[in-house]
């Protein structure tokens, strides 16, 4: 009887694995099959085309690519330094009472729906930009601020952990050499925790690139190529979000093609993360 159960368990796990892999394969193949014809037919024009007007059969998503890159870069420029700074604060400077209050709060912030950040942006960030910097406020800047806020909890919590788990000998050794606390952090701990921080940043960027609903609220969704940070813009994800309800035929395939490009961007992010974290040891030079 025993080896019947043995064979059964092996089979059950195998079938469950096959089903999951099948499901994941179906979604990947479905996206590729639906999206490929448009890329095939329009080819480079699809990615380089500057005018997106499905009604007139024009499917150029360069403005959306620029939009996604601009918004994500903006979010990274704001979010990454601040995130690392907060992580260092939490790991090295924060008194324990503050840490016990902030840590669950940051974890909660990482969990709340992104549309809450979008809503908060709509109420405060957009009017602020409109009143003080001009334009209607719905802009790349607004999107970048919202996305950086969304990235912060992820970057802070993961970077903080990667600093804390560092062996204390790193810090003690540097301090023993007469380095100040800040020098220790800058030239010893941060390089050592680099792989964890990079992973956190990549994770945060991945979420920023993939965000849809919150940015629909604050970006203005214009399909023109923006000429300044204060102009409205549409990203790849908002393009799908706004139009997928009524897209038909080639228009729908163009949205799937947009999905493929998003898929490629995420893959690039993942691969670059693995690449950076792999040669971690080389980078640990004590300045």
């Amino acid at each position, binding site marked *: 009887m*025993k080896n019947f159960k*043995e064979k*059964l*368990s*092996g089979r059950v*796990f*195998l079938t*469950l*694995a096959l089903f*999951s892999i099948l*499901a*994941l394969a179906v*979604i990947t193949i*479905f*996206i590729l099959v*639906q999206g490929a014809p448009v890329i095939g037919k329009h080819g480079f024009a699809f990615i380089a085309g500057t005018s997106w007007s499905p009604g007139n059969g024009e499917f150029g998503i360069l403005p959306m690519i620029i939009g996604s890159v601009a918004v994500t870069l903006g979010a990274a420029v704001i979010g990454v330094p*601040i995130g690392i*700074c*907060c992580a*260092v*604060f*939490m790991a090295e400077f*924060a008194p324990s009472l503050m840490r016990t209050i*902030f840590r*669950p*709060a*940051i*974890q*909660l*912030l990482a*969990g*709340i*729906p992104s*549309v*809450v950040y979008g*809503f*908060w942006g*709509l109420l405060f960030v957009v009017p602020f930009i409109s009143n003080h910097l001009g334009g209607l406020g719905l802009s790349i800047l607004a999107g970048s601020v919202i996305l950086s*806020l969304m990235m*912060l*909890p992820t970057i802070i919590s993961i970077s903080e952990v990667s600093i804390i788990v560092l062996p204390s000998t790193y810090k003690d050794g540097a301090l023993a050499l007469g*380095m100040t*606390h*800040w020098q220790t*952090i800058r030239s010893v701990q941060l390089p050592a925790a680099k792989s964890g921080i990079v992973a956190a940043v990549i994770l945060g960027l991945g979420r920023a*690139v*993939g965000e849809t*609903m919150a940015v*629909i609220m604050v970006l203005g969704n214009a399909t023109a190529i923006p000429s300044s940070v204060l102009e409205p813009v549409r990203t790849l*994800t908002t393009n*799908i*979000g706004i139009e*997928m*309800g009524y897209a038909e035929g080639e228009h729908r395939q163009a*949205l799937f093609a947009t999905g493929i490009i*998003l*898929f490629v961007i*995420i893959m690039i*992010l*993942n691969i670059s993360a693995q690449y950076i974290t792999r040669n971690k040891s080389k980078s640990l030079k004590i300045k």
Partner: protein
Amino acid sequence: MGARISQKIAKTLIWTIALTVIIILMAIIVFILYNGLRVINWTFLTEIPREMGQQGGILSPIIGTLTVTVLAVVIAMPFGIGTAFYLAEYTRGGAVTRIIRFCTESLAGIPSIVYGLFGLIFFVTTLGLGWSILSGGLTVAIMILPTIIRTSEEAIRSVPNIYREVSFTLGATKWQTIRKAVTPSAVRGIANGIILSIGRCVAETAAVMLTAGTVLTMPESIFSSSRTMALHFYLLAMEGTAMDKAFGTSAVLIILIFFINVVANALVNRFVSKGH
């Protein structure tokens, strides 16, 4: 002397930046809870919305969120955990497992709007399930599947191999070893992964918008459409016609997610403190 000055500057700089940013972040929650808690009362939680959500409560969106989340987790859990056990225990880590692991890694990163688009075309239209809790649940299940596989496999791999050897030397079979020696120490990590996925389901809007639909009436079964709380909040916030209800809905969401985190931490802390 330069080092001491830069130390002082750096320290004050870090303190100010970090404090202001964390305070701003927490202010978001306080702002929403402040405006939202006033709206939350018994009728708000037990009445269904009327007039496009401007009147009445948010009972049907609450039911929508719960049913879509439970359905997604119930579907994704066996497949996710089963795959994780298969990858961790039954394969030799050859090329195939590495490929599968890389695919789950990338699929875990795919934006949820792409899952929503896939769900709309595949479940809603092609399979003819229509806008329904079932379509939404299936779409979200596939969305959280890679995450559950990854976290569960990490939890199983973190079980020291010596436990398996001990179990084998005591005459256990592979299945008995998995059930009696591996699962007890992996279960906390697996449960944590599932609870984080639940958090993601509750917070999801893009993937459920055109799969579970935006209907406000009470769903009778998993075949009827129902708007989730996060989506209800989004639509109210965009319309701008019922701000108080929007605040109320987001406050309920934040409280729900807070409890999800509390449960997840309760599991992890006992696990981490023992292992740390």
